[in-house]
């Protein structure tokens, strides 16, 4: 017989009890919706972390003092174990380096034209832009000479520009930084939010020596550096650069074999990889938990299919008397179960997509339903329908037509 007719039989039976069919597929609806939402939350987390980490710059190695070192080292270096001499050594001796950017940081109050803003100040060299993949949209960056001289100039982030001067051009404005007058010479290109709500545009850049002498100088030695950004020329040289920097700095700091480093290097690529792996595992776990509700939904379908086989025993007997093969009966009931599950899966997919969209809108979280979620969810619902419809369908097909016709 025509297989399409069996599909018609199956849908006919489902439509005959609309309320019951809806309630039966509810388990699968919830299961599929949960899997879709969990997966998209997980993917959102992945996007979030990737943006946050790659926002720091590509092919980047971050060198920082090691604060975990013992109290003696703390006393000696005051937490500022990196020096200008380290930066020069890296520039001269390490191969495949595109840029080396030493920085010192501080939190400062800015005042200009009657407006106030509290922000982060970074004392940097011109190489900082290349190391961090930044660029200047208005005005210009300070050059090597200005940096060396410690000129009191600022390149401001987009947020700072907006907060202090609104829409008008910040270039040429005078700003007081802790009562020291600076001149704005450029505006950074906006990088937007990093992950976890951190605003990457809420920053001002100034020459390293100017920040040292005017802002952080009182608390540290004149040649101390807080963070050194080392940018490798390519992804493939990243590990080699990291190793060479580490060896060089151990040399510079006269650290003997077996002693702990007084600095640490972080490779952005490996951090990214590690966090992505963690999030993937986490997403899989979430989806698996949600998948349990799919199994519960399947049991609900099996239950109703067993009821249906009992209720329709006479119908099954009649169909056999009219010439239906056992396989026809088996397929009819299996299709009915798959159809119940599949309809539930479709509704669940819709609800899941809506839910993910809602989370993205309301929760400000980049939750996105991946393209493969559709086929996957539907594949799962077909599988659930088949697995849990198998036993009831088999029972229907095994009925003795004479017994079945006699049943009240």
């Amino acid at each position: 017989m025509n297989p399409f007719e069996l599909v018609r039989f199956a849908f006919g039976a489902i439509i005959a009890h609309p309320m019951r069919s809806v309630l039966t597929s509810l388990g699968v609806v919830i299961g599929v919706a949960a899997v879709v939402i969990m997966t998209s939350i997980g993917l959102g987390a992945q996007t979030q972390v990737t943006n946050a980490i790659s926002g720091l710059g590509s092919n980047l190695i971050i060198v920082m003092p090691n604060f975990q070192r013992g109290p003696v080292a703390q006393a000696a270096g005051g937490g500022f174990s990196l020096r200008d001499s380290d930066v020069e050594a890296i520039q001269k001796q390490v191969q495949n380096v595109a840029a080396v950017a030493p920085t010192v940081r501080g939190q400062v109050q800015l005042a200009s034209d009657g407006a106030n803003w509290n922000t982060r100040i970074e004392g940097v060299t011109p190489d900082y832009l290349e190391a961090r993949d930044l660029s200047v949209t208005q005005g210009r960056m300070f050059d090597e000479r200005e940096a060396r001289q410690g000129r009191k100039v600022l390149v401001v982030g987009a947020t700072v520009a907006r907060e202090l001067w609104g829409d008008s051009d910040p270039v040429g404005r005078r700003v007081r930084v802790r009562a020291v007058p600076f001149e704005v010479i450029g505006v950074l290109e906006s990088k937007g939010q990093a992950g976890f709500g951190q605003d990457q545009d809420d920053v001002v850049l100034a020459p390293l020596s100017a920040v040292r002498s005017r802002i952080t100088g009182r608390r540290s030695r004149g040649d101390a550096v807080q963070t050194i950004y080392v940018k490798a020329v390519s992804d493939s040289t990243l590990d080699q650069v990291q190793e060479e920097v580490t060896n060089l700095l151990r040399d510079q700091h006269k650290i003997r074999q077996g002693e702990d480093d007084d600095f640490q290097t972080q490779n952005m690529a490996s951090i990214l990889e590690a966090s992505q792996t963690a999030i993937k595992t986490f997403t899989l776990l979430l989806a698996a938990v949600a998948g349990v509700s799919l199994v519960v939904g399947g049991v609900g379908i099996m239950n109703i299919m067993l009821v249906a086989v009992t209720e329709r025993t006479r119908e099954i007997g009649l169909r056999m008397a009219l010439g239906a093969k056992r396989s026809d009966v088996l397929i009819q009931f299996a299709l009915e179960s798959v159809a119940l599950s599949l309809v539930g899966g479709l509704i669940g997919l819709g609800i899941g997509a809506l839910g993910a969209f809602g989370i993205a809108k309301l929760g400000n979280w980049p939750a996105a339903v991946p393209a493969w979620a559709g086929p996957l969810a539907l594949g799962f619902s077909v599988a659930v329908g088949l697995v849990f419809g198998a036993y009831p369908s088999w029972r229907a097909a095994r009925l003795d037509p004479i017994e079945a016709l006699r049943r009240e």
Partner: protein
Amino acid sequence: MIEIEDLKKVYVMGEEQVPALAGVTLSIQRGEYVAVIGHSGSGKSTLMNILGGLDRPSSGAYRFEGEDVAHFSDNQLADFRRRRIGFVFQSFQLLPRLTALQNVELPMIYAGLPPRDRRARAAELLERVGLGARKGHRPTQLSGGQQQRVAIARSLANRPDLLLADEPTGALDTKTSEDVLKLFSELNAEGLTLAIVTHDPDVANVAHRRITFRDGLVISDEHGEARP
């Protein structure tokens, strides 16, 4: 058309063996109108089930137009029922969800007839049994006599060689019983072979041949025209 030789059927109930047919030999020719008579438990229903391919004998031979039905597989029996047999039941056995027309279409769906053809044939059959105006009615909207006529139309759908009716008037009043029996006589007159199981002598007297069963055996086999 039908040849049965020493047919036996034994049901096993726990440790007891209950013989339903104890060695039946008979033949039915094409175009005959047979009534199978007997008390309940006489074996007449068992014989009908075997004749219709719903059940297999424990031993003995059953040939239908030369085919060895006794040794058919489940799938062969399903084919045999679909192509050769039309069933009419005491309780009509119509599917309540379907209209009269859809009920008549059902056997033709299993036969693989295209929708247009089977709809046309179902409509034609409903006209034939006098229900042309009730094609869209569901079984609950029809009287008992009308339901049984829908069932008869359904039994004719795949042009069977043999129509088997099991107490076809058992659930009907006298007037509608007469209508149904008249329809059977007309169908027989058109050449259809009929076998009716009944315990009602009035029904049996319409047939041209009366086979009486007792304790799983044929005790009489009378040929002759319908009695008045």
